[in-house]
């Protein structure tokens, strides 16, 4: 290859920079990091509104449905699949058990690179205690 001595190292450097996001975590040992959301320890708060498998996948849709139900329809009660009736409220229902968003919500959200705008307006219970 003409000018091979310059091209091949340059190409390797370029590919290395291009694939940096892929190999960086492996090299720096961060792939072993697993998000650890802290669950509420209080025995009375053992059951979430919906089962874990459902909530993990669908909590975004659930919260959006709740937002629509309360703000636009004025309906503030939700009947869960376990037949219990809950009040629809981010603060009074969800955050009642998961009091600190930084220890629970953010653990997975930060890891996954998920940003949500809920907290631009809504205030979680522990927030004021910190500020």
């Amino acid at each position, binding site marked *: 290859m003409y000018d091979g001595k310059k091209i091949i190292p340059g190409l390797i450097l370029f590919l290395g920079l291009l694939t940096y996001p892929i190999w960086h975590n492996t090299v720096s040992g961060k792939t072993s990091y697993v998000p650890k959301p802290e669950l509420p320890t209080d025995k009375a708060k053992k059951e979430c509104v919906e089962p874990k498998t459902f909530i993990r996948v669908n909590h975004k849709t659930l919260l959006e449905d709740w937002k629509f139900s309360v*703000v*636009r329809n*004025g309906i503030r009660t939700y009947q869960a699949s376990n037949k219990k009736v809950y009040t629809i409220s981010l*603060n009074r229902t969800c955050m009642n058990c998961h009091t600190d968003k930084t220890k629970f919500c953010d653990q997975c959200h930060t890891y996954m690179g998920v940003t949500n705008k809920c907290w631009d*307006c809504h*205030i979680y*219970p522990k927030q004021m205690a910190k500020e």
Partner: protein
Amino acid sequence: MQFDRRGFLKIAGLTALGLVAKPGWDVFSKIESSEPLPTPEPFAKKKWGMAIELKKCWLEEGCKDCIDACHRIHNVPDLGTLKEEIKWIWTSPYDKIFPEHEFEYAGEEHQHKLVPILCNHCDDPPCVRYCPTRATWKREDGIVMMDFHRCIGCRYCMAGCPYGSRSFNWRDPRPFIKKVNLEFPTRTRGVVEKCNFCEERLNRGLIPACVEACKEKALIFGDLKDPESKVRKVLQNRIIYQRQPELGTKPKVFYVL
């Protein structure tokens, strides 16, 4: 099965059937009868209105109890400038609110007294017509609602409101809130806000904060459809004023002198 077009279609059909079988079963198996939820009382049964007895309001000069209560529980920021101020309820001189009452030869007594004004929750609200995303709408119980999640901040509702009841968040309001009320969210910058007749309190059976805070009981709130309600009783046999009734907005805040 021959590996030609027909064979391929047969295999494709069976594969599709196989893929659909489990999800289809799941969908149909979810149909189970559950106990019906207790239906919330339909909004249309009530029609909220407010009456303001001006003579009682004027008993204490410089009183700001209603304003403080409202702005406190709703996390209304104090931005300090005329340019950016946000207010859900505030006071303005009588002669500015009711310019049609200004007569050359009338007495001057109450022309400069301060009158509390807020969103009138009109029956035919112009602001609701102009919103391009329906972030503001009129609920069946008469409250003109605001959905801060949907507002795009175009300020057309502000242009449409003849009373100037709406405020806009020109910047992030959080640093300017004196003491945050955890029970109510704040707003972000870029959305319009206004009085909501304390609909979150009404839902819990409480009266609006301003009505509760008024020491002179000058603000009276209630169901206009109920002839026995306090607000209806106050409006009986009195001369009632509204702000600019000739515009046809049918405001639900009445001023009683």
